[in-house]
């Protein structure tokens, strides 16, 4: 027959027990923690750079496309300008507005020196003139 067992709490006072200081171990732990921190930081930096580079790639591509888009818009606008300023269109619109061709001598060019006997080169006058074609 077994001895009956009766559980009862027994209070232990271990407050006199203290962990013996172990400087060597403490230093090891600190070194290890520092190394882990550095390693983790480097890993984080690497990761940050890696994903930043990927994000940067996306952004660069986006900017490239935007730049090309703007360049293309610029070309389209230049084409539109050329179409709108074609001489036939200007001429037609001028006539619809009641303008007429200038008569010979009606347009006076206020050049500094006008010498009828001087030789002339077939070069265009400035773009904006008051004539209609």
């Amino acid at each position: 027959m077994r001895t009956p067992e009766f559980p009862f709490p027994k209070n232990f006072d271990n407050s006199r027990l203290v962990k013996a200081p172990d400087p060597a171990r403490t230093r090891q732990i600190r070194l290890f923690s520092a190394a882990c921190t550095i390693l983790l930081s480097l890993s984080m930096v690497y990761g940050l750079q890696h994903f930043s580079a990927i994000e940067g790639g996306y952004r660069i591509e986006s900017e490239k496309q935007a730049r090309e888009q703007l360049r293309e818009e610029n070309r389209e606008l230049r084409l539109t300008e050329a179409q709108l300023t074609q001489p036939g269109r200007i001429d037609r619109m001028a006539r619809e507005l009641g303008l007429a061709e200038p008569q010979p001598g009606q347009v006076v060019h206020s050049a500094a020196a006008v010498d009828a006997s001087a030789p002339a080169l077939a070069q265009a006058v400035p773009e904006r003139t008051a004539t209609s074609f």
Partner: protein
Amino acid sequence: MPSAVRPSRNRNPAPRVMPLKRARFWLICLFFLSWAILIAARLFWLQVVLHGDFMLRARQQQQRTFDVAPRRGVLYDRNLRELAMTVQVDSIFAVPSEIADKQVAAHALAAIVHSDPYDASTSEEQIAARLDAARNFAWIARRVTAETSERVKDLIKAQDLKGIYFQKEFQRFYPDNEIAAQVLGYVGMDDKGLGGLELKFEPQLHGVSGRMYTALDARRHVLGSSEREPRPGRNLVLTIDENIQFMAERALDHAMERTHAANGTVVVQDVHTGQILALAIRPTFNPNLFRRATPDLLRNHAVSDVYEPGSVFKLVTYSAALEQHAVAPDDMIDCQGGQITLAGRVIHDDKSDRGLGKITVSDALAKSSDVAAVKLALKVGQDRFYQYVRDFGFGSRTGAEMPGETRGLLQAVNKWSPSSIGSVAIGQEIGVTPVQLVSMVSTIANGGVYLPPRVLMLGQIDDAANGQSASGVNTGSAPKAPLAAPQVPGELPDPLPPGAHRVLSTMTAAQMRKMMEGVVLYGTGKRAQLNGYSSGGKTGTAQKIDPATGLYSKTMHIASFAGIAPVNNPVIAVAVIIDSPQGDYYGATVSAPVFAEVAQQVLEYLAVPHDIDLRRHRALSKADLQVKEDDAHAQTADINALYAAANDLPSDDPLRGGGQTSAAGPPTAGGQTQVNATQTAAVSGAPVNVPASPQPVATHPPAESQADPPTVIVASEKTLRVPALIGLPVRKVIEQAAAAGLEVQITGSGTVREQAPAPGTMVAPGTKIVVRCGR
């Protein structure tokens, strides 16, 4: 009470067993160690052993290679206005495997994209056939307008159409529609030049394709890309002036409406540089709608067609005689009553000139006496006369940068018959192109130096031996300036361009100009008189060869006029050739007025000072309008000589029907020795009506009222373009304004928010630009 341990009396205790706790510890350690080893081994396997495989798979998945089409170069006029340029437009394609009902889709799409009846590829049947034929890719329509693209997008949204996508492609645009169409040419669907300068300079204009290497993520976004940049085509600056071209074409339109001619050509040239300022041809076509053009419309009559110049060629004869000092302008010459016999052949003057006796050489030219011309040629001598003809550029290609140029028809002197000298002297037995003719007149105008005609500004395209020059690369912005060498106004270029040579002395040229003025003032060229400017020239009326009979036709003529203006200091030379005018067919009445209209407008446009007094507009009197027939009498020249000259042409000459032609149409039949103007006799003389480009209103200048019209004063000194300053800091603004030669007034601080005048405005030097800055 804790159980006690019974003391053991055994002196040899059993071996100690590892406590269960320590064993369990090492077991767990072993487990984790194994796990770590497995992970490390797997990593090693994946990242080292299979490294190559995974890199390859990643490359295949992520990397895409695209061919990047090069952008075609821009064609500018001499003032850097775009005549032909390329922009991106939408092209529509389908993935047929994604389309539920192909027939319905084809029907719906064709209703939108099939707007041009000449474009069979966008018809419903064609679209449906392409959708049935392919599984992964089928074009719906290429290079559609923005409006069509939007409508298709709306259709896709409305009907939830699947499998329809858009792609950007380059499209060539000619903003001026029909202006200089034959000169510019056009490009086909594959962006290759098929006529004109587009064809001639296809390698330079096309550019070099590039390659783009991209990395795509799982969502097909581009991670990064690297590209071998496509090399865009070179921009080319032409000598053509858009406005002068318009004036020439409008004047030609007026003439075509009046005369219902088969075709017409007007060439305007700068006499001091040889640059072609305008080259107008009717009928014409719209390069934007090249599908509607027929091969005959694509032909550049100015360089590919020849005609017998008739009396206009007397300028060469008289020039040679004066240069050889065989005669002087005031010498008397016996016109023998208007008839001369040469090697058994009788050459008559025109009926109105018969009875002419002794007149001055100047008068003989003014009255266009054939007898006088023959006599002068005989005085010069056959060999020397032939040399003058060659020196003026006839009988050889001018080298103008247009495809399909013929050298013309001129028999070698050793093959001339005894009467050939007489025929050639009066412009028969010789075939010339309009460009050759205007170059001849320019030679007289500029003091006697033959300058090869050019359509391209110098210095852009080196010859094949030197390779391409580095200028004019298409960076998306206009070139800074035409590349011609700086030149003193009114003087010949120094050094002379290649191919230039002196033909006449300056004295002879001056004498010829005076005589040409006499033609306009007193002779057959009265309709070529200008208002405020002196002019000179020569009329010509030549019979064409009837292809049916092989003889000179009495009903088909070519009316021509070649002239210069002003006379004392010429600026331009103009040649007008009207083929087969109906009704009145004389050069004096058909072509001379065209010269007057073109020259008057061009000189005013170029701000050339008037050299004679302006006069009120008055209708020319009947006496003035009375036209003496030039040389429209029966031509008795030896046609066989012309045929023989044609058979002497090189194989690549367009008149032989071989080699390079000016259009991608069917080649002309071989052995066509008569002047090609006859081919065009069958072509309607009416201009092509294209709805996209309404014809200018064909009106003539209104009758001048009695009161003087108001004067418009235009500043013609050098103007400067206002630069774009918005967004720039103050320092940059000051630098740019100073560089542009303008003053600037700054209000506020920071970067520029507004400016006046607007960028691009042309202002006088020293104008003050006002900018408002802000932060």
